[in-house]
């Protein structure tokens, strides 16, 4: 039996042995389906977190600019019926241009950048739109398998209107040669769904003499009535 969370083939399974950490962390028993009346918990309207002026510009959080290719990442957050999700809190975090996180446990021997922390947040406008300015993160090695490298990515976290629409995901960049070797991206069964996570180069978003633009739209769960096969 399929649960709500994997009904669509759009979602990765919990156990995916090529991603080694899943083997001792994925629950082995089936999830128990909660009646809809109990699962549709409404989130408080956003307002529990102050957003600072430079929170959506990761290049302006230090006295000087970080190293790397300056980029704009922008898009729209919608539900499965393509309706705008306004007032959604988006939080992001990422490695620096050299592929290193500002984190005590990141042991990758690449330089830290004193002018880059790598965390940001914003809230979607009435039309569901958001925008970040940052630098393009570097790819980095990890120890999942021999010569394993993560494709460059930015982590995204979103709060929609209910508990069920909570989403944590990763945004990738177009045409990354590492895609076929990355078990985290490949854990998603459906190719169209994987494609959702790849941003698109966008000349309109590109700011002359300043930053390359990447467009990344996000679809939050809204209802579960339409089977995966019928979706676009």
């Amino acid at each position, binding site marked *: 039996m399929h649960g709500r969370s994997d009904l669509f083939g759009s979602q990765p399974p919990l156990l995916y042995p090529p991603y080694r950490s899943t083997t001792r962390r994925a629950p082995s028993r089936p999830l128990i389906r909660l009646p809809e009346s109990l699962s549709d918990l409404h989130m408080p309207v956003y307002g529990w977190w102050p957003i600072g002026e430079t929170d959506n510009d990761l290049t302006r959080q230090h006295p000087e600019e970080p190293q790397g290719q300056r980029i704009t990442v922008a898009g729209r957050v919608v539900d499965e019926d393509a309706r705008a999700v306004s007032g959604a809190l988006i939080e992001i975090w990422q490695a620096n241009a050299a592929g290193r996180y500002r984190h005590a446990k990141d042991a990758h021997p690449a330089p830290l950048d004193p002018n880059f922390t790598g965390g*940001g947040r914003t809230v979607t406008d009435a039309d569901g739109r958001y925008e970040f300015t940052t630098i393009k993160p570097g790819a980095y090695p990890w120890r999942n398998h021999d010569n394993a490298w993560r494709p460059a990515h930015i*982590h995204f976290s979103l709060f929609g209107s209910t508990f069920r629409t909570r989403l944590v995901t990763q945004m990738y960049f177009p045409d990354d040669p590492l895609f076929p070797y990355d078990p985290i991206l490949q854990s998603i069964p459906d190719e169209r769904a994987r494609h959702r996570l790849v941003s698109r180069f966008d000349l309109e978003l590109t700011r002359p003499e300043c930053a390359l633009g990447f467009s990344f739209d996000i679809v939050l769960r809204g209802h579960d009535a339409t089977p995966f096969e*019928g979706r676009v």
Partner: protein
Amino acid sequence: MTGDTALIATPSQTVGPFFHHGLVPHADPMADRFPGGERIRLLVRVTDGDSQPVSDALVEVWQRGVFGRMPTREDGTCEFETVRPGTIPDERVESQAPHISVCLFARGLLRQLHTRIYFAGDPALAEDAALGTVPEERRGTLLASPDPTRPGHWVFDVHLQGERETVFFDV
């Protein structure tokens, strides 16, 4: 994106081990955001299939519209200062025992896990609709226990796998 056909939802990906600059905990204790109630300290402890502490998880909790989150420490635990559900004035909900909803993220979890924290010894447990969907022998995994040595302290264990694997819900 068209209006008359349902869209494929954006897939989930793991939170990874390095989320701390992105998913920052709220500065104030949850307890301060409730209108009264019995203050408690709730320790959540996360372990993997080898009974090892999960030191890079993020625990998010929702309780009556109040949100809290904490990363786990080296010993797999994190602590919330909140109020005991059921002790806030006018909060009685029909067919639900007082509880806290949990959303768990970690490296190695490709999607978040949802569970609930109930409180051991609560007479309302017997009439709870969500607990009623859980096989009786597994209901105990959803109960926080009082710490016998420290009044007002409760402990909730999350076992990701194994004999005492916690019940996780498809929401």
